[in-house]
């Protein structure tokens, strides 16, 4: 679970055995059309092991956590807190206190953006965004790591700046020195673009950001499900990722932060479970992570997500990454052969991961996706919550195929054949 490169290539995944764990993959969309699910970047499917873990918990140990003295409450609390530790370990975090659960990754990023904008002057100036400060993001961000910072800038009078995208679908770091300065309070970036598949040089950028004293926030939604990620080793200060993109349940996201950061941040949501003492006049708050978990949390989802971590670790994240690299290469090479199809993303030789977006000249992605769907090939169409990225490349949208551990090479071929059929279908009307 470190970033160190294993000398030997991992053994390939046994995809047909893996598929046996995912009941949904056997379903037919209609009498003749099997499901070819290529939208795991939007949400991944869940193996029986994850579903069973939730059912086992709910049929044996379910109770409200962290309150009540009865034995069932203790069992539920144990399951919940063990899940926290398990999920932390999956991303290299040894201290479960650094893991707070949110309803999704979007909420985790919003918690950071709101907490950093809280005007309480008793907090260190380094962790308080105010007028005159700058927030740096990138042009490739998902709206979830863009709009909260835009809004933080609006609330505080800070200025939002961004690292532009280059022609080769990577970040254009030419002017980094003028973008990342002593004025930069927060630098928020994605580990891996949900559209382009580009993997950013996070460790290098985080170290540059720390030289100017900026706090580094990582959107790890698209990296944690697909490669071995050690968040502390990347050198970032905080990160967010979501359960449902990594074979886990919806309704759970993860906010990770360094001890000193979380200890200083104020709560954003308040209420039960996050307090220390309450009088009619004032309240003091619990230590992290409870401070960021107001109300009854998502308990069975945490148990399910821990089971997803077990599942992925049993496969081995290096093997998962190698599997998806192979699929990506096959998809990029196959799609690039087709007339009018242009892959919107970096070359397969560069560091790049399992999301392949493409444009078909003269055809809107909705029309492309509709014809692919008629063949059972389920892809995402549109701007994929990254509208500025698409504008940057003069595109209204793209068609995106994204992969997971259960994706087969036959499914990649179904996509490529399907695109051939899309081209033929629309040619009839020319």
């Amino acid at each position, binding site marked *: 679970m470190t970033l160190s490169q294993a000398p030997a290539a991992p053994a390939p995944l046994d995809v047909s055995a893996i598929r046996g764990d995912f009941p949904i993959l056997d379903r037919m969309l209609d009498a003749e*059309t099997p499901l070819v699910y290529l939208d795991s970047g939007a949400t991944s499917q869940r193996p029986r092991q994850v579903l069973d873990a939730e059912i086992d918990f709910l049929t044996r140990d379910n109770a409200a956590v962290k309150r009540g003295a009865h034995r069932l409450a203790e069992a539920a609390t144990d399951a919940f807190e063990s899940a926290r530790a398990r999920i932390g370990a999956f991303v290299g975090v040894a201290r479960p206190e650094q893991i707070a659960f949110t309803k999704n990754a979007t909420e985790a990023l919003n918690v950071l953006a709101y907490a950093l904008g809280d005007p309480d002057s008793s907090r260190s100036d380094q962790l308080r965004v105010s007028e005159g400060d700058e927030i740096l993001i990138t042009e490739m961000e998902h709206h979830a790591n863009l709009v909260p910072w835009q809004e933080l800038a609006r609330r505080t009078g800070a200025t939002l700046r961004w690292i532009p995208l280059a022609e080769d679908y990577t970040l254009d770091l030419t002017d980094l020195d003028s973008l990342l300065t002593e004025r930069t309070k927060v630098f928020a970036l994605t580990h891996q673009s949900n559209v382009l598949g580009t993997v950013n040089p996070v460790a290098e950028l985080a170290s540059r950001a720390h030289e100017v004293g900026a706090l580094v926030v990582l959107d790890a939604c698209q990296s944690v499900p697909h490669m071995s990620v050690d968040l502390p080793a990347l050198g970032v200060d905080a990160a967010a990722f979501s359960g449902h993109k990594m074979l886990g349940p919806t309704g759970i996201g993860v906010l990770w932060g360094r001890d000193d950061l979380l200890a200083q941040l104020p709560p954003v949501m308040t209420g039960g479970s996050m307090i220390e003492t309450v009088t009619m006049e004032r309240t003091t708050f619990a230590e992290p992570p409870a401070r960021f978990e107001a109300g009854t949390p998502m308990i069975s989802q945490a148990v399910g997500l821990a089971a997803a971590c077990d599942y992925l670790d049993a496969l081995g994240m290096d093997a998962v990454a190698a599997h998806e690299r192979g699929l990506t290469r096959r998809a990029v090479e196959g799609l690039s052969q087709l007339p009018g199809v242009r892959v919107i993303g970096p070359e397969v030789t560069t560091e790049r991961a399992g999301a392949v977006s493409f444009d078909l000249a003269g055809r809107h*992605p909705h029309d492309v996706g*509709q014809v692919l769907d008629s063949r059972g090939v389920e892809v995402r169409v*549109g701007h994929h919550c990254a509208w500025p990225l698409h504008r940057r490349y003069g595109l*209204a949208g793209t068609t995106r195929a994204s992969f997971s551990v259960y994706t087969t090479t036959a499914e990649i071929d179904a996509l490529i054949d399907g695109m051939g059929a899309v081209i033929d279908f629309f040619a009839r009307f020319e």
Partner: protein
Amino acid sequence: MDLSSLYTDIVFEHDKRPLHAGLREPFEAEVHHVNPTCGDEITLRLHLGGDADAPVVEDISYDATGCAMSRASASIMSDLLIGHTTSENEPVAEHLDRVMHARGEEQGDEEIIGDAVALQGAAKFPNRVKCVLMSWKAYQSALIEARGALGWSA
């Protein structure tokens, strides 16, 4: 799955050679509508004639980006509505709206909605209904704005 009910020849004809496309003067209202889930956009201008009691749609001009369904819909709509009074147009828009929300259970009447019957295949694909209706919603907003600009309250 049969795509022919969705992608009819009429849809492609309008997609390829959209009628009344482009932005023209004069106009009393210009609106910009987007479909936030897919990023489709239309800028639509409306020019009214006639008088406060019987406004006439003299011109609808537009610039639309989007899928075949949404572009065809803008083309068909402008051709249907131009030259008619706004009260003549009302039942047209209402009928199309009802057909599009009927999930394929209600057939469109060609006497009322003309070429727009070619769009009704989208009613069976709930995520495509908004593609068809974007330009119609833009027209309705533009109508309210244009009446306001002319002092012709509805």
